[in-house]
């Protein structure tokens, strides 16, 4: 009898791992597809003369960033942490301490999707003017060291924020604020595109060349989010209720973000702004990412509504501050990563300020996201400034005028004849 029971237990563990592996590997593959969403969104929002260069940048995010995250990044994020960092290389064989029922390698693969998503936020903000090899260098630094440090603090079982009870379910802070504030620093150091501001310093619109393409990118990102957030459960067995909550909250916040942007732009400008509505949906998604596991559906809608307004105000304000962000990455990911993380402290069903949980969680959320945003901003600012003073980070004037596609890559996105 005893022998039979042992076999049953072993088989059950096998079964759990098998089910969880199917769940996580599907989610990881869908998260990987989000890179295609970033590529199309960014390509559509830039001018045709630079549209292939932005696709090259997203490919660089994946290939350079991916190898860097394999060689060094994952070890720093999920090795044996002293609370702030870990020293490991490659994918560790030892128990990471998260109670994983999937292999460490599959866990690495889903985490890879998070790392390259974070750096892809930066690729949009530096569009149309950054040197490609210098960008690749920054990608390696970001995915090998910068992002993994934030992931260590937030998600490593020994990370200092994890130990304080910081709740960032799928990365409003570790992925989106991290990427968004790196994007902000990079855009400041790079300076605006030629012609973005007139003699009086007023912003000039530089319309994207293919808005339907940008919309397709937005839809792919939207779709991918239903793997990004629910997949962060890292297992399906025993999580069926949580996965439902996360998926529902993720949708509700995105829809609310779209609604509030549509209404805001309609009443402000007299017309609905569709490209801003895409950003509004994404803003709702970014904002709910931190708290999608522990807020109510009503709170998710409220968070989305606020995020949709925040992104509209932020895009205009960032433009006025003479920071040129062609795709709105800073407003979507930076500002709403910040807001979404803080919102957990307000709306969490058990510990949120608005639900009688006191201010302790709110303080932890504020502290965590501000540290991550400041860390990302300051370090990126320093690295970019050093690169600017030494090897130069910006394509020269004639290349920027002619288009990076033609000069650096010798390619045209749309060949006119035949």
């Amino acid at each position, binding site marked *: 009898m005893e022998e039979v029971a042992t076999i049953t237990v072993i088989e059950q563990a096998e079964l759990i791992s098998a089910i969880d592996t199917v769940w996580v590997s599907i989610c990881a593959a869908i998260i990987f597809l989000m890179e295609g969403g970033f590529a199309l969104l960014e390509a559509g929002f830039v001018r045709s003369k630079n549209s292939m260069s932005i696709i090259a940048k997203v490919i660089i995010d994946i290939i350079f960033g991916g190898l860097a995250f394999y060689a060094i990044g994952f070890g720093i994020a999920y090795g044996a942490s002293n609370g702030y960092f870990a020293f490991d290389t490659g994918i560790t064989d030892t128990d990471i301490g998260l109670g994983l029922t999937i292999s460490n390698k599959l866990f690495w693969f889903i985490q890879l999707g998070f790392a390259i998503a974070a750096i892809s936020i930066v690729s949009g903000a530096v569009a149309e003017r950054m040197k490609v090899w210098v960008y690749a260098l920054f990608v390696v630094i970001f995915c090998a060291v910068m992002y993994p440090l934030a992931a260590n603090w937030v998600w490593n079982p020994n990370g200092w924020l994890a130990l304080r009870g910081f709740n960032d379910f799928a990365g409003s802070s570790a992925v989106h604020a991290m990427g968004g504030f790196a994007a902000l620093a990079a855009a400041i150091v790079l300076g605006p595109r030629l012609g973005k501001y007139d003699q009086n310093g007023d*912003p*000039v*619109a530089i*319309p994207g060349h293919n808005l339907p393409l940008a919309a397709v990118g937005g839809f792919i990102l939207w779709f991918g989010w239903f793997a990004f957030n629910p997949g962060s459960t890292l297992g399906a067995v025993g999580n069926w209720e949580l996965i439902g909550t996360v998926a529902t909250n993720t949708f509700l916040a995105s829809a609310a973000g779209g609604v509030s942007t549509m209404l805001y*732009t309609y009443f402000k*400008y007299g*017309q609905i*702004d569709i*490209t801003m509505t895409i950003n509004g949906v994404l803003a709702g998604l970014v904002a709910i990412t931190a708290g999608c596991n522990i807020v109510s559906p009503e709170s998710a809608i409220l968070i989305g509504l606020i995020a949709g307004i925040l992104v509209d105000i932020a895009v205009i304000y960032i*433009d006025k501050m003479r920071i040129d962000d062609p795709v709105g990455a800073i407003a979507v990911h930076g500002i709403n990563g910040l807001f979404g993380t803080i919102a957990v402290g307000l709306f969490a069903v058990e510990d949120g300020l608005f639900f009688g949980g006191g201010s302790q969680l709110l303080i932890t959320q504020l502290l965590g996201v501000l540290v991550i945003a400041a860390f990302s901003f300051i370090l990126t600012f320093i690295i970019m400034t050093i690169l600017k003073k030494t090897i130069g980070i910006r394509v020269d004037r004639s290349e920027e005028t002619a288009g990076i596609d033609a000069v650096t890559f010798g390619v045209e996105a749309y060949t006119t004849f035949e």
Partner: protein
Amino acid sequence: MKKIEAIIRPSKLKAVQRGLKDADIPCITVAAVKGTGLQKSYSERYRGTEQSMILQNRVMITCIVSDSKLENCIDVIKENASENKAGDGKIFIYDVKDAIRLSTGVRGNDAII
């Protein structure tokens, strides 16, 4: 032999094409163009920033006709392309020295119909 360059509203292209075909002037070359004339200036908003001096989409039809068909051609375009409003477009007429049909090498008036 004359060259007619007509800049018209894109929505009128089909009607003009049909009219010219019915008038036995089937050969046209069409290009999408942007421009501005006397119509009110037009602005758009892109992601919250106003863009002024937006150029309007128009279609430019080029056709080469014999002198005898010139007035007929102009009438057809006027009839089918006008809304009697600013922004309808314009017609320009040029002299043409010669024409050569590539497939047969025929020159002059025989080459254009």
